[in-house]
């Protein structure tokens, strides 16, 4: 099969696939489905080369102007459809699309016509794809894909011979049918199908391996999560120190539901630790339970501390964008009440820490509602009471320390009364008598705590917090160590905190009898590292970081739900546009009828105005079309030059069809062969056809190169010659 015929065939198949998709998917009106189906069948039969259909179609020729009128009619029909019949944009658009396809099918002359057909088919298959999720769509889409691959292939293959041809007869004139280069050989057929299947399989692979939307699976591999320390079950003293120098961003925190705290530090809690063995902290209460999912995606922490539930502290609502970390801990300001986010499941332990089932490989965004615990006034004077054994074993545990630590604790709290004052005294002592430094190699010591308290008096957050916890426990006040982040960097362009690895922090939670767990921080406020470089760079960095956050929010996290919302909005918008158009038209027409009514008769019934509006609307549209046509005058005033060029075109088409037919019969005209020369070839190779070919060629040359107008009889003669030629069979 020659390429041009195959191209025609696959193009029609492509159109058919999209048509079937639409027909089954949306339920086209019967008359439109029948019309399109018939058009497809007729064109298909024509392209297969059934000459009787060809003759039939030739009998009812619609001129180019006729087709234009059909398009205009279709467009008007689209508006009528949109406003009165289906009253919706999508079905009306689909009906118009089908009409366009029918028109295109009968006008497949130029290569751009083929391109138009492909565009229409693409829109149709997209429309049907968006309207259905049924299984039947799969075979249809597979057919479409197959036809699409073939069409692309053939379109490209016919392009080369086309490019060398001229523009008057833009149909393929194959080079030389003898060598089989320009025909669809079985070999090529299987290569094409193989390509299609290969493309399909690759799509499948991509479909199943490339994750949906927001998950940057390949962007950040599993092994590339940010390394953090201090959030596992056991943490050696001094583990936080090294990461205090890393500037990587860990999370961004937006506060909502309350006035923005411009730049004030925000504690973001990770996990707490209860047991200290002199060198390392351990979390013995790490047993995790699943959280209850209250509504879809919202998890609530159970087991409120009873003392706190009496008073309501300040609620903090945070929106956190967490970078992929190597820990499953979910950070939030203390103390978490509920978490909502795209999690299948969440865990928590009794200390109020929240965990993911496993470390997230991708960036996650979640919202947390926290409630801070206020200090109850009753605690200002109350002594630390007696605690049950189970509680004391956890939070009053003391490692075997030297007596010096105990002595120091007693000395500090000697003059104070009440638990709260003791806590305060210890905190003030630590804050004021020790020097903050990251260069404190205390971890190598046998007793790092004593080293910190009595010898070096230099350390960082971890040492301060550890010292405070142990000192408090020495005097019988339950306390625990908490690790997390202290957010201080405020991005004023996006109004959010930027939390970096260097913001990792450790502090203390003290249990007071009435208030419950109260966060305390013995670490002195760190003087802001002035070495952040050029302030301009800092500003630029913050702006850029804000842009990055917005990008993540509006593009990466753009989900099906958002898409759906947009579609809903569009639909609502189109309905309102339609209503507005109808309203304005009705009001316009009613004004018109009012005037008319005033002239004709005084009592035009108001009830009939709606009906009149529709009638007059149609009449107005009709008048506008008539006016437009009258201005263009497609039927009159045609100059002889235009007429001649039309007949030229008709003759050129006849000649082109003759060439196509001859090439199908095995005698193709090389592009570098002149017309009369080709007649000589025909004479030598197919003498029976010679007279017809010579006659057609002569008339063609006369019209094409001589610009001598053909008479209607000559055109008819050429047509007859072509039909007689086509009825001949080559031996």
């Amino acid at each position, binding site marked *: 099969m020659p390429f041009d015929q195959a191209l025609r065939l696959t193009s029609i198949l492509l159109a058919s696939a999209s048509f079937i998709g639409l027909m089954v998917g949306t339920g086209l009106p019967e008359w439109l489905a029948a019309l399109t189906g018939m058009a497809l069948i007729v064109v298909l039969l024509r392209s297969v080369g059934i000459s009787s259909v060809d003759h039939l179609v030739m009998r009812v020729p619609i001129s180019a102007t006729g087709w234009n009128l059909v398009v205009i009619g279709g467009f008007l029909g689209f508006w009528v459809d949109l406003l009165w019949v289906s009253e919706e944009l999508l079905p009306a658009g689909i009906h118009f699309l089908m009409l366009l396809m029918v028109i295109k099918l009968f006008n497949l002359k130029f290569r751009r016509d083929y391109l138009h057909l492909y565009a229409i088919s693409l829109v149709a298959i997209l429309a049907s794809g968006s309207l259905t999720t049924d299984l039947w769509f799969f075979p249809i889409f597979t057919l479409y894909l197959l036809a699409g691959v073939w069409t692309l292939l053939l379109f490209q293959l016919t392009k080369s011979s086309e490019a060398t041809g*001229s523009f008057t007869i833009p149909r393929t004139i194959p080079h030389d049918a003898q060598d089989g280069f320009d025909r669809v050989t079985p070999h090529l057929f299987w290569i094409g199908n193989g390509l299609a299947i290969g493309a399909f399989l690759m799509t499948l692979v991509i479909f199943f391996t490339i994750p949906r939307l927001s998950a940057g699976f390949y962007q950040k591999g599993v092994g590339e999560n940010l390394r953090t320390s201090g959030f596992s079950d056991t943490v050696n003293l001094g583990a936080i120190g090294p990461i205090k120098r890393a500037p990587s961003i860990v999370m961004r925190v937006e506060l909502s539901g309350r006035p923005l705290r411009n730049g004030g530090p925000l504690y973001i809690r990770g996990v707490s630790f209860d047991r200290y063995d002199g060198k390392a902290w351990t979390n013995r209460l790490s047993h995790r339970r699943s959280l209850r999912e209250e509504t879809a995606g919202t998890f609530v922490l159970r087991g409120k501390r009873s003392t706190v539930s009496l008073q309501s502290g300040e609620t903090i609502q945070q929106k956190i964008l967490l970078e992929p970390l190597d820990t499953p801990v979910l950070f939030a300001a203390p103390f978490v009440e509920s978490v909502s986010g795209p999690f299948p499941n969440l865990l928590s332990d009794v200390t109020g820490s929240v965990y993911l089932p496993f470390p997230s490989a991708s960036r996650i965004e979640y919202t947390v509602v926290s409630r801070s615990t206020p200090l109850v006034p009753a605690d200002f004077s109350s002594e630390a009471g007696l605690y049950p054994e189970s509680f004391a074993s956890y939070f009053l545990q003391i490692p075997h320390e030297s007596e010096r630590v105990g002595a120091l604790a007693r000395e500090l709290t000697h003059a104070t009364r009440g638990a709260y004052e003791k806590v305060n005294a210890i905190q003030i002592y630590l804050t004021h008598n020790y020097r903050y430094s990251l260069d404190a190699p205390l971890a190598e010591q046998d007793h790092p705590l004593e080293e910190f308290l009595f010898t070096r008096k230099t350390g960082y957050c971890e040492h301060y917090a550890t010292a405070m916890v142990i000192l408090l426990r020495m005097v019988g006040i339950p306390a625990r160590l908490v690790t997390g982040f202290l957010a201080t960097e405020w991005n004023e362009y996006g109004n959010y905190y930027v939390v970096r690895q260097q913001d990792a922090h450790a502090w203390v939670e003290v249990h007071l009898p009435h208030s419950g767990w109260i966060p305390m921080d013995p670490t002195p406020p760190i003087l802001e590292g002035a070495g952040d470089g050029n302030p301009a760079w800092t500003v630029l960095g913050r702006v850029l970081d804000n842009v990055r956050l917005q990008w993540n929010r509006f593009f990466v996290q753009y989900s099906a739900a958002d898409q759906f919302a947009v579609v809903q909005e569009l639909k609502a918008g189109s309905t309102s546009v339609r209503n507005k158009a109808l309203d304005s038209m009705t009001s316009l027409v009613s004004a018109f009828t009012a005037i008319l009514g005033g002239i004709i008769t005084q009592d035009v019934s108001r009830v009939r105005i709606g009906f009149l509006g529709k009638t007059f609307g149609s009449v107005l549209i009709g008048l506008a079309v008539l006016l437009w046509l009258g201005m263009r005058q497609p039927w009159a005033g045609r100059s002889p030059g235009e007429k001649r060029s039309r007949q030229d075109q008709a003759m050129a088409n006849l000649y082109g069809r003759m060439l196509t037919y001859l090439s199908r019969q095995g005698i193709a005209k090389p592009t570098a*062969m*002149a017309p009369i020369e080709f007649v000589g070839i025909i004479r030598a190779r197919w003498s029976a056809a010679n007279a017809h070919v010579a006659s057609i060629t002569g008339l063609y040359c006369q019209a094409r190169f*001589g610009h001598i107008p053909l008479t209607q009889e000559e055109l008819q003669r050429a047509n007859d010659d072509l039909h007689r030629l086509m009825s001949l069979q080559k031996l």
Partner: protein
Amino acid sequence: MNSTETIRAIQENIARVIKGKPQVIEMSLVALLARGHLLLEDVPGVGKTTLAHSLARSLDCSFKRIQFTSDLLPSDIVGVSIFNRQKQTFEFMPGPIFANIVLADEINRTTPKTQSSLLEAMSEAQISFDNKTYPLSQPFMVIATQNPAEYHGTFPLPESQLDRFLMRLRIGYPSPEEERKVLERSPSLHPAEDLLPLLTAQDVVHLQDQVDKVFMEESLTDYLLAIVHSTRQSALLSLGVSTRGALALSRAAKALAFVRGRTYCLPDDVKELAPIVLSHRIMVARQQGLRPRSFEQAERIIQDLIDTVPVPV
């Protein structure tokens, strides 16, 4: 008798002398009607001179023949000034160039100086002598012959000079049957002398004017230019076809269409004429052949080039 029949009659007239060479006869008529000059290049004895003679005899025009030799001088062609004793002035005696059809036999045997005097007359259609310009009579056509086989004592025409000829034709040996007819013909020393003139000089000028009116379609002009352009691009040629060559091809195509009874050109006209109109205007790159001036080689290259240029459809 309309122009088509006239031309047919002339062709038949000449065909009575030159047997079995209708194409050559047609092309020589094309050269005449396109106001061009003809270069016949072939081995001796195939009828070059006879063709020129027959053409001249078929027209009622003046005909001169110049046998070119190495000692021929420009004044032998153009003419001389002779002192007139009675009038006491120099008087210009026109040379053989002042004729309608001039047969320049074995043009490559004479010196370049003499050659150029003829060639200037060919392109300007006038003669300048002693600060005076003498227009040549119309129609004016030079039919030159040259012998490719002999190289001793010849002065080959340079390409720029060859460019002045509209076309270069080969006659070739006749087929055995045609040759037999030539032999069986009644023995006559000058068969062309028996021909009867069919056209006057005025008729020829009129026909030439009609050729100018032949229509050449725009895309056909593009086709012609594409052919010319391809010769300039080809790696096989060291010199492509000049603009004069393109003009010549266009004129010749019109004349051929006219000779064949059409008022418009076809791609066939251009394609058929291209080898004979263009092949003497090009220089074959030296590495392409042992004899860079070989006629056949140049024609074959042009033919190959034409077969790559798409014909407008």
